[in-house]
């Protein structure tokens, strides 16, 4: 193989890649935030004793988890406008990733919720707290501590899913890399650098989650 690596062309476009990465992070951040709110509500619905609350939540989680996210992305961007719902590229992707992360986070949160001893709720009730006050002050803070380790891998995996936005030409990291690939023909170099950026970002995310885990750990 007579190929010599030459990164010069990729470095010249490095700013473009960084802008793409910034957008990737932005997409992930907003979607995970919305997804966390959806996930929290759905998780409480999943553990509800009422079938009218539990069943729709379970159906939502099942459907979303059995669909490839790329299909969802393409559906939202190409099929929805035909049905009269017209969203911009970014809005449509954020909506999809939010709904998608909502289903995954709901499962993570549900597991965290059921591991909290019933006695804590009773102790809260006994001092006169309302069920909502108990959720806010006791259940959710403990649940989040419980799930931080598994939350880390879900968050990283959701961040990586932003690369699918390239399929509808959202200028995030993968899309920018493809553009540089086409413009410079430095195929190997481009994808090595893009991969490096993904790995580095995910490592930083994982480290941040570990710090959060340590700082929030219940002392014993």
């Amino acid at each position, binding site marked *: 193989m007579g190929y010599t690596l030459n990164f010069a062309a990729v470095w010249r476009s490095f700013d473009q890649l960084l802008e793409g990465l910034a957008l990737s992070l932005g997409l992930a951040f907003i979607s995970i935030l919305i997804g966390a709110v959806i996930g929290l509500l759905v998780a409480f619905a999943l553990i509800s004793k009422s079938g009218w609350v539990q069943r729709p939540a379970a159906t939502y989680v099942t459907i979303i988890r059995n669909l490839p996210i790329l299909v969802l992305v393409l559906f939202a961007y190409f099929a929805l406008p035909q049905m009269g719902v017209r969203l911009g590229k970014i809005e449509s992707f954020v909506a999809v990733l939010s709904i998608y992360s909502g289903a995954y986070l709901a499962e993570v949160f549900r597991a965290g919720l059921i591991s909290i*001893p019933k*006695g*804590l709720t*009773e*102790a*809260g*009730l*006994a*001092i*006169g*707290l*309302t*069920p909502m*006050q108990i959720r806010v*002050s*006791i259940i959710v*803070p*403990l649940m989040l*501590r419980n799930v931080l380790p598994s939350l880390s891998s879900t968050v990283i995996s959701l961040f990586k899913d932003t690369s699918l936005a390239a399929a509808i030409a959202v200028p995030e990291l993968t899309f920018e890399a493809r553009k540089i690939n086409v413009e410079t023909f430095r195929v190997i170099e481009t994808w090595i650098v893009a991969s490096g950026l993904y790995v580095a970002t995910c490592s930083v995310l994982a480290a941040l989650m570990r710090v959060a885990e340590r700082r929030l750990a*219940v*002392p*014993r």
Partner: protein
Amino acid sequence: MSKVLLEIQGLRKQYGTVEVLKGVDCIMREGEVISIIGSSGSGKTTMLRCINMLEEFQGGHIRLEGEEIGYEHSGSSRKRKSEKDIARQRALTGMAFQQFNLFPHMTAAHNVMLGLVKVKKMSRDEARAVAEKWLDRVGLASRADHYPGQLSGGQQQRVAIARAIAMSPRLMLFDEVTSALDPELVGEVLQVIKGLAADGMSMLLVTHEMRFAYEVSSRVIFMNQGVICEEGDPKEMFVRPKTERLAEFLKTSSFN
């Protein structure tokens, strides 16, 4: 005689088809310390938990200072009170549990403060002062900023009692508070309860500590198969039980 604090009338409770309380009647006056004894499955814990609506019940009335607990009655129909009403009524009683149930992500002081801030609407400073006062009362002033996981079982239970008592309840409920403790830690918790009794706190205790029930109670209730089988002054009851059942129970219990 002091005035009536708690009135239980024909209390019935069932899980599915199993009846656990088959019509319990009981009147408790202010300042009384009543121990409820009986073998497991006799319904004593269930009765305690009905008083603060941790258990729903299907029949009868519970009144605290004349106020109907848990349900509204109109004619022959009854309806559970609103969640808000029930929360307010629960704050009138304090409860300590077998498993302590401290909030593990909060320090001892914060455990005590939570209800003061959220239910009593105190400022954090006021609540902190009240929490410190009660933690001091249970001998844990120096542990205020420790987390439950950093405390021994006996210390945790004392914090849990401080948490309940800080809400200034009209009535304290103790549900087998020493059953989960190592034997050498039981004494410190019983000491705290004795102190509260000396202060005139009205208390209902479900307990297996017969010696303690004998010493601290103004009255003892012996439950058997969902009804009150015998009740009276412990000095009398423990020495000369009137029913065969109680005699049997005392023989197999730790009291002798």
